[in-house]
């Protein structure tokens, strides 16, 4: 450790390289999302959901999806969006399809929706379930069905959407509050740099989640994970900028350049931040390794976020701070 400390630390200079890395990850994520058609998860859009619970994975998923879609079309139902696969707590896999409120091509209005759901339910009870089961047993080597069978549920469109929209608004408000607080307690540049770091962390988390899970589950749990990351990221940023603030107040740094201060701050916050993320990761990983699959898929974004947060706090934020200071100085000199 002491050897590392004695080395010269110029992270700020390496900024272009570092941010390039982040950029690549984010772009990859965006490409993945667009490629899969921005699958936002059933919670967000509403409709009728058909959930097929099986003991194990379907061998040829694409074929099944195609078959099911055309099969439902013959019955008069329109499948929209892609099929979603998610693990079940007690073991097994669930495949979800979202159906639009349409019957034989004609739109089902609000007052007829209840009847639509009832009809859908009955259709499955009266034969569709058996047909799906028959199809699956011909294309899979094992019988995947257990008693759970097929479950039809209604996802009210307005309800989840308004819930989520509210959450986004709340998040935006919270971010503004944080920004203002940091600007007051530290400096404007620190505030701006912190928020940029935050944005970076959220984008990386979203990108990595999209890459690994092939869709973006926009639901409450994911948002809670994102908020957790924001909380953690801010903490890390504050540790760095607290150091910067201290340097600026101290006489020893009166003639130091911004870069020197930034590098010093990084060097002397390194241990704190690394230990922090290590201890938090331990808690998180302990939960992941021995827990059920649904917790695992929820913890994954948190892990991505923690790593992104550490990276941004140490490597990106200080450089951004230097940048903003420069911009600020330029604006001032123009005014003068």
């Amino acid at each position, binding site marked *: 450790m002491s050897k590392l*400390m004695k080395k010269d630390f110029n992270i700020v200079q390496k900024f272009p390289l570092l941010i390039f890395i982040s950029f690549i990850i984010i772009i990859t994520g965006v490409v993945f999302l667009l490629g899969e058609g921005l699958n936002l998860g059933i919670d967000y859009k509403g409709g009728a959901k058909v959930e097929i619970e099986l003991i194990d994975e379907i061998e040829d998923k694409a074929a099944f999806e195609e078959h099911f879609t055309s099969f439902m079309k013959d019955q008069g139902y329109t499948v929209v969006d892609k099929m979603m696969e998610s693990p079940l707590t007690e073991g097994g896999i669930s495949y979800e399809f979202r159906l639009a409120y349409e019957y034989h091509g004609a739109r089902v209005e609000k007052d007829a929706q209840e009847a639509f759901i009832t009809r859908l339910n009955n259709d499955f009870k009266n034969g569709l379930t058996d047909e799906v089961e028959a199809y699956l047993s011909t294309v899979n080597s094992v019988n995947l069905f257990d008693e759970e069978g097929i479950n039809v549920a209604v996802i009210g469109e307005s309800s989840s959407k308004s819930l989520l929209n509210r959450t986004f608004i709340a998040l935006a408000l*919270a971010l503004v509050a944080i920004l203002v607080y940091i600007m007051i307690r530290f400096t404007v540049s620190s505030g701006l740099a912190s928020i940029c770091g935050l944005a970076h962390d959220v984008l990386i988390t979203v990108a990595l989640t999209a890459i690994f899970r092939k869709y973006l589950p926009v639901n409450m749990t994911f948002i809670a994970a994102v908020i957790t990351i924001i909380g953690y990221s801010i903490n890390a940023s504050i540790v760095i900028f607290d150091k910067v603030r201290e340097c600026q107040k101290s006489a020893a740094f009166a003639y130091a350049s911004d870069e020197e201060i930034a590098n010093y701050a990084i060097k002397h916050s390194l241990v704190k931040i690394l230990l*922090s993320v290590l*201890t*938090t990761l331990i808690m998180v990983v302990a939960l992941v390794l021995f*827990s059920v699959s*649904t917790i695992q898929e929820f913890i994954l974004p948190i892990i991505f976020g923690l790593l992104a947060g550490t990276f941004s706090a140490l490597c990106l934020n200080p450089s951004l701070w230097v940048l903003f200071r420069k911009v600020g100085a330029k604006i001032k000199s123009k005014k003068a």
Partner: protein
Amino acid sequence: MSKKKSIVLITLMSVVIAILGFMCFASFNVGNSIYKYNSIVSIIRQGIDLSGGYYVVLEPESTDGKASDAELLEKAKEIIRTRLDDKGYTEAIINTQDGNKIRVEIPQVDDDGAVLEIIGQTGELTFKDGSGNVWLNGQDHIKGAYAANNTQDGGYMVVLEFTDQGASRFADATNTIKDMSDNKLYIWLGDSNISAPAVNEQIVSNTAQITGSFTYEEAMNIASVIDSGKLPIQYKVTEARSISSKLGASAGLTSIMMAAIGLAIIFVIMLIRYRGLGLAACISLICYCLLYIVFLAIIPSVQLTLPGIAGILLAIGMAVDASIVIFERIREEYALGKTAEAAVAHGFKRATVTVLDSNVTTIFAAIILWLVCPGTIKGFAITLLIGIVLSLFTSILLSRWILKVINPLVEDDEKFLNLKREGGNN
């Protein structure tokens, strides 16, 4: 502080922690009595996504002014609450959603159909005679019921309003019943008999009174129960979904064990790097976790959900971070030349500023989320808030106190606290 006082305090502290730990995790039967003590951990209410269950969203059908009447909304919620309680679903949670919708969450329900029926209509209101013939029902024959002053006999009574059809049926019913040996008119709501007034003569009227010198509450109760044969507004089910438990049956215990293992590893790291300081941190972390459990169980609006667990993780992480920030600061102070004692004092003082800054920003976020968002995110915000406030207390004050208590027993401060003079942060 003398050595003796130190030892006494340490022993006291250990006993308190042990008792608290026991109270948090152990459940047992009290001697030979029927009382059972439930561990504090099991008292913490679980959200529907952890326990699994069924939820329904009801939306008012009509769009005339009535639909947005807050009072009617409350009444509807009360009625649904009564229905669910009667059927034994006391754990159900009923909330208003988006202003005029009702969201009902029922944990650990297997039979979806049964639940929907309970909420949707329930207990038919029927009027039967002594031999079991049904004369009137709530759907077609009753317009409403309300409590009124019984000016004749004092007390209160319940007034029933019939529809036209109901009025004529009622006349027929009373005409027949008055001559029966069992001349009571039994009023049933589902399976419960709520009243059985005696019928002495035919009553031709579109109102009827149920007298019995009721108190105001009793009369209101009966009236609302009769009235609840129908909800005040016609509701429609717009959302109905069963939620399988995200945790699975045995996950509760496993998660706690895993959390304990995670904490143990953290303790080891803290002890290696910070030695004596780390010891203080570990003890205060144990207290923190126990107190956290207690508060989660005590505070009524806490409901543990999957996002709530994220909140707890974050809070514990921040508690550990706080200690790390403080201790690194102490090491820096010592490296700059201060005595061990001064380094500790100054370190705590200076680092508290940093810790407060980080925690305050997170508290802002948590408060805003708590105020604005409903449901699961609200649960997350509350657990986070409790955790952070608690961590401020334990990481800053408790650690400091523990260090003070242990100090008299320590010979070599520097070695105990692992402080080094060489420049920098190693």
